[in-house]
């Protein structure tokens, strides 16, 4: 259709030009010759040309010019003001430096254009009324509103006193290095101005540092008083001005409720905190004052800015302040809420992140090795009784709990979904608050059992929303910060083992995005501590997940060590800042955990000690129960665990046990405050596992404390798995804790029950792995489970079944060589090969060649990791290989087998003497210990030696 029109138009055009070129007297004849309807159209067109041929062009340009003229005349555009230059452009509109054009007097003013339209008569009336009220405000610290109007195109503008600015209040104080007292002086001027406005029934509604400029004389000037109301007043109810900065907005503003003078008080409280924080650690009084100003309920805040000012004065004079009766807990909550590090919302993650079930339950496998003859005889009778008793108690507890738990889980799911619905509503309202809002909701929801799905959806919605917001306004740092933070939370949800236990691929992507944002923000605000701390947190989390995910373990550890250097630098640069010390401690702790996993020999006790030393004073300076330090308590518990584990690696078991006990006590205290928090409960579970493991290592696997620890561990794991059936992380933990329990039961001699638990665990782990084939972690854990199962089956005399488990383990180990840290895979392969060799030997084969290969692998591991634990592993590998040779020799194999057996078992014997503690003497093989095998070998080779 347009095509036909186009061709018709071309024909018309050609005729038009042809006719236009003709002398006037020939044109009519030319037109006459054309057929209709072309003739009429052509004739009409030609009529538009005057004698010069320019008539039509003039008419068109005139039609445009006439409108342009009255649309764009300066007087019509911004009243009598001539715009000089743009001072700034932001979310609300743009501000111009201008002068009066009518030369009444030369005076600079600021003209602020806003994007809102004023289309209804009602909105214009309200605008005019407000303008008159605002114009009456006359205070030295309030930039005066001089005039207001609307452009010809209907955009409202405000003409304000032009403030020569030496920076906004925060910048000014930073730049001039003002003392706390000087900062308070400026802040009191601000309070005075706000109080003055309030007395005149004007509320600011958008107080933030950017609206408080300081002039070169040091006088603060508040901008935009009441303007938020003019622009956004919406008598129909819910309004959420999109430029309001969430950080400074009161909860009632965030909810879209009525705004009162108390809303301004709230914003003042936030600004006060920021203002003083940079100068000094807030003393108790100032924190109390800021806390009272920022209380959740507006009725609980200061009655007036004057009252706030009075308390500040009292604090400055060292007099008692009025806010004292304000309970600590509420005060601290406010403080924590406003001072949260954006990345700290799930600060409990150090242990949880680094103890994907691997670390905590690792020694569970050693427990198999730990079955000791010495304990075997005396235990049985007493333990049968104890087991019956325990089972009875368990059954009783279980049934009582089951009903309560079902109800509880349903309630939690409902709460989570409600929160999510609320979140959805908020986002559809296009609230800028998504960022800060998500922290609060997330903090509540993510910790709830059964909430994995709801919190995932919640975060996905937030991220989608924030991404949209960020793409529209990439210069808005608040949005960027919130986005980075949401990315991190979402990553934790994906990778956090307590929640879902993804393999970390998605988490890595999200964290990399967050890291990119923070780098950008960091380059934009090089000195901003908050951004840098978030960067440290995110870089560290990235490194930890990369390590957990396997692959370049050393690289991840190096990265974390560089990150640690940055954290150290920040703490040194901000010696008074508690946040910087906290982050340093957290980074130290994470580094130790990562080293424990990647290069145990490199795990530094000094680092763990330093973390503990940093954290203790932080906690001591705070009152117990102040929520702002709950995170710090978690990190302290983490660093105690780190200390304990370093000690355990060094075979200092008693010290390790002491530290684990202390960490466990702390975790249990925290858990009591957050009875529903899954991550914290999981941390308690992990600590129990550590305690039980230590008793194994100390040669007392059935110590009463170990029994209690294993039982509590298993109970919590079961509880967590039954509360959130959608959580793979909880399933994984449950499988792993069952394995640990099985090891304990084997130690008690209850092999049959142990085998049953192991069978279930292997099945659960294989299912998790099959559903997520790229997830390396499931495979790692499966190999451990297979090893334990194989050992149990071997002990039960089920050799072919045992062999099948070990062979499966070897296949998994081979598959892991490309994807897990090389040492890790090699260790697995060594263990699998030596066990296969042993079982085959027991079944009558000569499998000495495989046993030698197992030993080779263990030797290579030792060459790269010379920690005592690794030495012990090597010694055990020697003993097992020696055992294979001895068994073959005893069956009448080659005579040189005895020599080899004597050599290897001799090495083991020597290592046992050299290495302190209990790692070694636990080995035994089917009731024959290696000592007697060694004796036999020495006898056979004629080397009966009385070596020491």
């Amino acid at each position, binding site marked *: 259709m347009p095509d036909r029109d186009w061709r018709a138009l071309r024909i018309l055009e050609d005729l038009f030009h042809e006719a*236009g070129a003709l002398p006037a007297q020939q044109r009519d004849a030319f037109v006459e010759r054309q057929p209709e309807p072309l003739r009429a159209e052509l004739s009409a067109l030609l009529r538009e040309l005057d004698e010069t041929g320019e008539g039509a062009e003039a008419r068109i340009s005139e039609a445009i010019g*006439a409108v342009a003229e009255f649309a764009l*005349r300066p007087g019509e555009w911004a009243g009598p003001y001539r715009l000089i230059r743009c001072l700034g452009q932001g979310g609300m509109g*743009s501000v111009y430096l201008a002068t009066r054009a009518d030369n009444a007097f030369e005076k600079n003013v600021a003209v602020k254009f806003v994007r809102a339209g004023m289309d209804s008569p009602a909105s214009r009336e309200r605008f005019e009324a407000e303008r008159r009220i605002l114009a009456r405000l006359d205070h030295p610290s309030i930039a005066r509103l001089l005039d207001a109007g609307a452009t010809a195109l209907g955009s409202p503008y405000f003409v304000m006193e032009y403030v020569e600015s030496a920076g906004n209040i925060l910048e000014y104080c930073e730049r001039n290095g003002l003392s706390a007292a000087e900062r308070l002086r400026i802040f009191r001027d601000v309070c005075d101005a706000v109080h003055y406005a309030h007395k005149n029934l004007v509320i600011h509604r958008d107080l933030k540092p950017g609206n408080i400029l300081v002039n070169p004389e040091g006088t603060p000037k508040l901008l935009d008083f009441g303007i938020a109301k003019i622009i956004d007043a919406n008598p129909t109810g819910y309004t959420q001005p999109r430029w309001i900065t969430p950080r400074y907005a009161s909860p009632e503003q965030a909810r879209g409720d009525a705004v009162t003078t108390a809303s301004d008080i709230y914003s003042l409280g936030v600004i006060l905190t920021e203002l003083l924080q940079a100068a000094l650690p807030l003393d108790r009084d100032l924190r109390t004052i800021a806390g009272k100003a920022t209380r959740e309920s507006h009725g609980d805040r200061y009655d007036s800015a004057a009252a706030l000012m009075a308390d500040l004065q009292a604090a400055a004079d060292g007099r008692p302040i009025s806010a004292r009766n304000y309970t600590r807990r509420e005060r601290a909550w406010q403080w924590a809420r406003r001072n949260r590090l954006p990345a700290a919302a799930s600060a409990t993650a150090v242990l949880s992140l680094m103890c994907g079930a691997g670390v905590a339950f690792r020694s569970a496998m050693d427990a198999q090795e730990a079955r000791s003859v010495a304990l075997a005889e005396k235990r049985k009778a007493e333990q049968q009784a104890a087991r019956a008793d325990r089972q009875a108690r368990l059954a009783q507890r279980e049934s009582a709990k089951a009903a309560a738990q079902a109800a509880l889980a349903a309630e939690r799911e409902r709460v989570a979904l409600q929160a999510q619905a609320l979140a959805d509503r908020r986002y559809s309202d296009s609230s800028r608050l998504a960022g800060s809002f998500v922290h609060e909701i997330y903090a509540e929801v993510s910790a709830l059992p059964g909430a994995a799905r709801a919190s995932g959806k919640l975060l996905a919605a937030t991220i989608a929303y924030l991404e949209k917001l960020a793409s529209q*306004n990439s210069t808005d740092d608040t949005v960027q910060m919130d986005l980075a933070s949401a990315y991190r939370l979402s990553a934790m949800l994906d990778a956090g083992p307590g929640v879902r236990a993804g393999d970390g691929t998605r988490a890595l992507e999200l964290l990399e995005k967050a890291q990119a944002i923070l780098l950008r923000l960091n380059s934009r605000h090089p000195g901003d501590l908050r951004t840098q701390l978030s960067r440290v947190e995110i870089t560290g989390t990235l490194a930890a997940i990369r390590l957990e995910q396997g692959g370049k373990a050393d690289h991840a550890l190096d990265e974390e060590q560089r990150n640690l250097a940055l954290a150290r630098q920040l703490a040194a640069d901000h010696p008074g800042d508690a946040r910087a010390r906290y982050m340093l401690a957290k980074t130290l702790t994470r580094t130790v955990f990562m080293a424990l996993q990647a290069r145990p020999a490199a795990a530094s006790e000094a680092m763990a000690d330093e973390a503990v030393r940093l954290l203790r004073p932080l906690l001591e300076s705070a009152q117990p129960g102040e929520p702002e330090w709950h995170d710090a308590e978690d990190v302290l518990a983490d660093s105690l665990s780190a200390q304990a584990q370093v000690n355990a690696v060094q075979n200092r078991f008693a010290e390790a046990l002491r530290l684990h006990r202390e960490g466990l006590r702390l975790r249990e205290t925290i858990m009591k405050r957050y009875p529903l928090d899954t991550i914290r409960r999981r941390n308690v579970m992990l600590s129990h596992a550590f305690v039980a493991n230590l008793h194994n290592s100390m040669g007392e696997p059935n110590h009463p404390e170990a029994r209690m620890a294993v039982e509590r561990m298993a109970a919590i794991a079961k509880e967590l798995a039954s509360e959130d059936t959608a959580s793979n992380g909880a399933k994984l933990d449950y499988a792993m804790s069952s394995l640990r329990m099985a090891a304990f039961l084997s130690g008690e001699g209850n092999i049959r029950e142990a085998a049953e638990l192991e069978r279930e665990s292997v099945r659960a782990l294989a299912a998790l792995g099959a559903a997520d084939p790229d997830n390396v972690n499931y495979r790692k854990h499966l190999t451990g489970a297979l090893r334990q199962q194989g050992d149990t089956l071997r002990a039960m005399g089920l050799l072919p079944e045992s062999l099948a488990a070990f062979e499966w383990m070897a296949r998994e180990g081979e598959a892991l060589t490309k994807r897990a840290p090389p040492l890790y895979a090699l260790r697995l392969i060594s263990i699998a090969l030596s066990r296969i060799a042993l079982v085959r030997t027991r079944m009558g084969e000569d499998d000495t060649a495989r046993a030698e290969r197992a030993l080779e692998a263990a030797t290579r591991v030792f060459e790269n990791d010379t920690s005592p634990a690794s030495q012990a592993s090597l010694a055990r590998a020697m003993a097992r290989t020696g055992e294979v040779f001895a068994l073959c020799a005893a069956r009448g194999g080659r005579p040189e087998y005895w020599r080899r057996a004597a050599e290897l078992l001799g090495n083991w014997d020597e290592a046992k003497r050299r290495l302190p503690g209990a790692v070694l003497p636990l080995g035994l093989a089917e009731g024959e210990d290696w000592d007697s095998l060694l004796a036999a070998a020495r006898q056979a080779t004629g080397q009966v030696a009385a070596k020491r």
Partner: protein
Amino acid sequence: MVELRQQEDNVTVLIEQWKEGEASALGKLMPLIYSELRRLARAQIAGERANHTLQPTALVHEVYLRLSGSAPPPVEGRKQFYGVAARVMRQILVDHARRYLRAKRGGGAPAVALRHLLPGPPTCAADLLALDQALDRLNAIDERKARGVELRYFAGLEMAEVAEILSISVMTLHRDLRFSTAWLAGQLRHRE
């Protein structure tokens, strides 16, 4: 010369960034092409008319507000960007004419909103709206011709510049404009 060249490259890069959703790029772009836009604006509002007191800054500012408030249009480079700016200028004027007519029709509006509206000739506002519609129709049939009118008369670009943007010779542009203005004028004359 080198500087000019660099500036030109800069502009192209910024346009590219803006297009890719980097909203801040527009903020950086505006100062760079500010004088250029002012020239366009000046051309547009001055024309051959007597009153030369119009304020190009205002139009540039308005263009900025429009551009920043919406998704970036598909622009390839510097030349196309001016095409977009021209389109925006056209839209600004049309909006203004519309608002003006509405205010007239509405009557009795409070002083503050109308305080700055001069009693402009209502016919020229109506003309402009009719022209806008006719231009849309022309655009549907022959886009090049409509763009020529927009660039030349709404944005006030020189003939040579318009020809360059449209990748045609000045002669062809001249022919185009002669025809399209006659066609548009005819459309205006024949509206009810």
